[in-house]
């Protein structure tokens, strides 16, 4: 009994030390690099911190009211939502479609998976630059192709009506490989017995997809949706590269033409780090955080309620 107690306490002590040794650094890092910056940003969002001054006067909700009265922020908010509404459904649908196709590609599965995944692992800066030149009205490959077919050439990124679509097309191309790989992984978890049963019951391919594949991909779909929408809401690099000084060679003030590609994170960066309105930038970050949180919770709730069986 005595020996047993001693043995147990030694075990617990070892386990406790192990837990402490492993969790403490992680917890500290999490607090320092994750929780603290968010908390600091939340605090700064109630100040008019301008970077240089050591005092950061508390101004209450002024940055938040300013945001919702700022026509440029409202335009950025609209653009961000439109961007997500384009990139998320198209990116998810294409990713699923590719996964279904590649899943049946037999020995070529590996090859296609690699091909479609290359844009994901490629530097977004490099590829966005290449796409920017592909959109160039005079020399760009897109207009060359249109001309080949006798179709009218476009101004692409220079056209306020097309610019956001052009950036969205790039983002879809860049991200679809990731969705595809996740869906492919999800497809491998579906037991073939469900497909066999469906066939025995006389289901056609379309019915199998809707009644078997899609419901059984529910968890995967949830993950892909949540990550795609978060990525869309936080988009920065493609917009920054493709829209900077769109009719000039400069490297500043992205979001053109006429702010039609300006998204929240780009505007936040512009205000915080170019115009040194750090308090206002922090408030925009907080607004985005709430939007992401609400969007994510709604998705989780909707997907769980709809397909949990």
């Amino acid at each position, binding site marked *: 009994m005595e020996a047993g107690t001693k043995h147990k306490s030694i075990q617990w002590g070892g386990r406790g030390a192990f837990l402490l040794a492993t969790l403490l650094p992680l917890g500290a890092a999490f607090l320092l690099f994750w929780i603290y910056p968010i908390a600091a940003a939340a605090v700064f969002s109630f100040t008019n911190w301008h970077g240089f001054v050591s005092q950061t006067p508390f101004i209450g909700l002024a940055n938040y009211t300013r945001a919702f009265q700022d026509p440029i922020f409202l335009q950025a908010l609209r653009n961000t939502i439109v961007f997500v509404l384009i990139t998320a459904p198209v990116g998810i649908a294409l990713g699923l479609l590719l996964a279904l196709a590649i899943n049946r590609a037999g020995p070529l599965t590996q090859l296609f998976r690699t091909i479609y995944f*290359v844009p994901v692992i490629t530097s977004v800066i490099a590829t966005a630059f290449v796409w920017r030149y592909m959109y*160039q009205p*005079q*020399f760009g490959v897109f207009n060359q192709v249109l001309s080949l077919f006798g179709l009218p050439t476009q101004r692409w990124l220079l056209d*306020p009506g097309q610019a956001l679509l052009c950036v969205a097309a790039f983002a879809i191309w860049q991200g679809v490989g990731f969705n595809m790989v996740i869906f492919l992984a999800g497809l491998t978890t579906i037991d073939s017995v469900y497909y066999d049963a469906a066939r025995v019951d006389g289901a056609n391919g379309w019915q199998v997809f809707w009644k078997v594949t899609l419901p059984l991909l529910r968890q995967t779909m949830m993950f892909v949706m949540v990550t795609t929408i978060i990525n869309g809401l936080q988009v920065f690099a493609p917009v920054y590269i493709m829209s900077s000084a769109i*009719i*000039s060679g400069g490297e*500043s003030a992205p979001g053109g*033409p006429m702010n039609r590609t300006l998204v929240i994170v780009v505007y936040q960066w512009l205000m915080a780090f170019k115009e040194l309105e750090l308090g206002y930038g922090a408030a925009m970050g907080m607004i985005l955080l709430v939007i992401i949180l609400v969007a994510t919770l709604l998705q989780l709730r909707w997907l769980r309620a709809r397909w949990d069986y």
Partner: protein
Amino acid sequence: MKPRQRSLNRREFLKAMGLGGAAAVLASCGGTATTQAPTQPPPPIAVPPTAAQSAKTLTYKGTLDLWDWEFPVRQKVYQDFIDNKWTPAYPDIKVNMQALPWGDMETKILTVASAKNGPPMSNVFFFWRYELERAGVLNPFPEDFTDWNDRISSTFVRDDGKIRAIPSGWFMDMIYYNKEMLDKAGIKPADIPTKMDDFIKMAQQFIQKDNDGKLTALGCIMNDYWQHEYLWCDLIYEQGGWMYNEDGTKSLWDEEPAINALQFIQDWYHKYQLDSVDFPAGYTSFGNGSAPFFFGSGWNTAWIYNDFPDFKDKFDTVPAPTLSGKPTPSWGLFCPEEGLQVFNYFSADMQEACAEFVKGITTGDSEVDLVVGNICAPDSRKLFEDTRITSVPTVKAMMDTMPWRVHPGERPIEAEKLWRTMFDSVILTKGDAKAAAQEAAKAINIELPKKKRYFTERNYQPPTA
């Protein structure tokens, strides 16, 4: 200088497309795209032998970091000064120069200065200087630093009795012309009109269109954000207007001179059809022969040399035409290349060493080297007759107009996003110039009173002779 243009000519574009896939794959291996420092060797700069015996005694020992934005010709001058003059005179004080991409420089210098960190001295562009001045982190220059009466900038850099900048030179708009194209058309450089209307008619001779009415050759390229901004300011001042009211609390962008200037820029593209946004921006289309003229600021010269080395001897410049054909009331805007500044939150001996470095490189023969290297107009009146400078191609056209130029001082950091939208509106969508100007003016007028501003445009006095 302003940011380097990002457009490609046809040859570069095809090369980029060919290499695009390979570049993308390579980049995926962990590389990130950065602005590449141009590889074209800058023109040789003659650096006189060191004058180590005249060096001031400095107590600081160690390394001084120096930041600059990428502009190879200037970095060559700085490095030559460090190697040939500074290091022999002060072997215990190493100067470590770092050239940052233009796109990063502003954000980085403001960020590190706000944390009272970073380099003790840096080249500071006039766009950013005012933010640093407001923060009180820049050391003013002493009165005996140089002969301030000789400096063009004196009128525009003094505030609260202190001189806070020492520009290494000035840039202003001018007309770049393609010698071969003009020669072929039987036009001599001296024939290029000094009145804008006449210049437009001349440039229109070179316009070519395809069967669909699409421009295939341009009259005079501009198509660059910075040129729109500078030309807009030029035209406001040329009409005798101002950008801001006297106490700097309100913009005058919605007044007649500003609206007329904006309308002119719209007409440049849509009425006169001298230019097209479909062409690669700015000097790129000039360098690849798409237009005989380029309406550009002086900082473009170095980039044309850099990007189009074969074109180097095939272009030159003349002064920009004005609306009236005369230099009065003003010949428009000019902008300082600004210069080195010392930050005041470092130790006194370090600041003293930095100040000595700045003094060394901005006075005497080094100043000539700096001006020649930057291919800009000098800040010093006594250098106006210096043949080492006047013989530099493209520089004289700027110097000839300098006495009639206006420097607005602060360029409000909040303005750029508003101006971009304003120019996009009138150029890309043929929007109403008055409405676009009013919208920008309304937005900036909310911002202007929030801070002390350093507008200096009204210090301008046209020469009496």
